[in-house]
């Protein structure tokens, strides 16, 4: 069991979060507190609102009711607050979403240069360091289209880390990958976790959840159904819906 690195500092706070798509109530009274250094794994059936929930945290989705506070900054209509939060929150997507017209290196230096006003030399040096950390410095001058899925996702992680985020959001980072490439991405994520990054991961990689998560959250129908530390969550799920879900995904 991993030793928790959580501190007392509150990093992400969702209070009574509600969201509707038209008539459809996607998120119902979500309450979640994530402390600095905590790693949260969020799972649940498709359509349960898990991606929508983490996408609300950096305002890729707009919520209608409730409060979101990231590192003491309230997420509201103020564009300054939204941009401030986005600078502190990194995100990794299911489909990588690299910029195909830019080289790997350019992908990594773009935001530091244009958002953080970092000098190019410094941004490139930092990008190379991070590309080394995700073990693909030799691909720096290639275009994303020349890389494998696993490599692209590692670039996406490096690109996100170039902004020195305090929190990382992972939205099904391995779901679009071939089985043999999943490991290389998870290895990078595990390394990141051991370094103390605050992480919220939507994933069905239960092995990953067991190794790094401080808490596993199970969502269904737009609600948090169950929340527990991984050992309890997997061995002793309380709710019938959680038991059913776990039996479905763990039976093979």
């Amino acid at each position, binding site marked *: 069991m991993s030793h928790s690195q959580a501190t007392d500092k509150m990093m992400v706070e969702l209070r009574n979060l509600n969201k509707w798509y038209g008539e459809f109530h996607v998120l119902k009274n979500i309450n979640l507190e994530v402390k600095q250094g905590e790693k949260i794994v969020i799972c649940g059936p498709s359509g349960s609102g898990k991606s929508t929930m983490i996408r609300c945290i950096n305002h890729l989705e707009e919520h209608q009711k409730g409060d979101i506070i990231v590192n003491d900054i309230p997420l509201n209509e103020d564009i300054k607050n939204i941009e401030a939060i986005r*600078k502190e929150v990194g995100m990794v997507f299911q489909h990588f979403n690299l910029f195909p017209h830019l080289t790997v290196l350019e992908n990594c230096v*773009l*935001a530091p240069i244009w*958002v953080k006003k970092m000098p190019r030399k410094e941004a490139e040096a930092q990008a*190379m360091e991070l590309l080394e950390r995700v073990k693909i410095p030799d691909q720096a*001058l*290639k275009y*994303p289209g*020349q890389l494998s899925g696993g490599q692209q996702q590692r670039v996406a992680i490096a*690109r996100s880390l170039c902004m020195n985020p305090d929190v990382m959001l992972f939205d099904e980072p391995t779901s679009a990958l071939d089985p043999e490439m999943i490991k290389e991405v998870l290895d990078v994520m595990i390394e990141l976790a051991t370094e103390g990054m605050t992480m919220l991961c939507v994933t069905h990689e239960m092995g990953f959840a067991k190794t790094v998560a401080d808490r596993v959250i199970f969502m269904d129908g737009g609600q948090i159904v169950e929340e527990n530390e991984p050992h309890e969550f997997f061995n002793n799920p309380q709710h019938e819906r959680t038991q059913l879900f776990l039996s479905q995904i763990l039976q093979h």
Partner: protein
Amino acid sequence: MTWEWGVIWQYLPRLMDGAWLTMELVLVSGLIGITMAIPLSLMRASSLPWVKVFPFIYIYFFRGTPLLVQIFLVYYGASQFDAVRDSILWPILKQPYWCAIIAFSLNTAAYSAELFRSAIQAIPVGEIEAAEAMGMSKSVQVQRIILPRAFGIALPAYGNEVILMLKGSALASTITLLDLTGMARTIIARTYTPLEMFLAAGMVYLAISAVIIGLFRFMEYRFNRYQYYHHTDTPKNLDPLLRDPHIDQK
């Protein structure tokens, strides 16, 4: 009938004068048109109704009426207004050359704006989300992601638009300009060799098209080069312009 090669050779220099004017019209109005098209397309791609209504009406008007009518409206129409004749713009508006430039620019701006609009909307949403998630402001997104991406996507279709413009420029001859078509007609009026002259003019149009096609091929390769690289290409094989000496030292 007799075929007069001699006439073609004799008048070829004059025909080339016309060809230069044709190319000048296409180039100048193309540059003005694309400059107008970029902001128009961004407005058109907006989700705000009051922002996209102006470009919508503009594009609707210029795509929905014949280019010839637009040329006549500028050339004959503008002079009907005393305000125009008294304005400081009159020295420009009374010249057929500038009337043609104005009509062509407005026309191609409308078509190009629609092209760029569709290209902007063809950019995968995920790329924009990634830019947003990194805290990029809208203006940085436009400059660094949206416009470069849209330009690459629109390039093949925009090449098509330029070729259409080249052929549309023949209408300049209807307002007394001696472009390639105008020159051919003037020569024919003097020599009565329509077949030879129109064939020669057609050949020159083909040659100009060939240059435009080649130019766009080249630009496509430059701007969309990321699509041409194979995953086995090593950085050493990549374009030297892309290489950063700072990185090479590592």
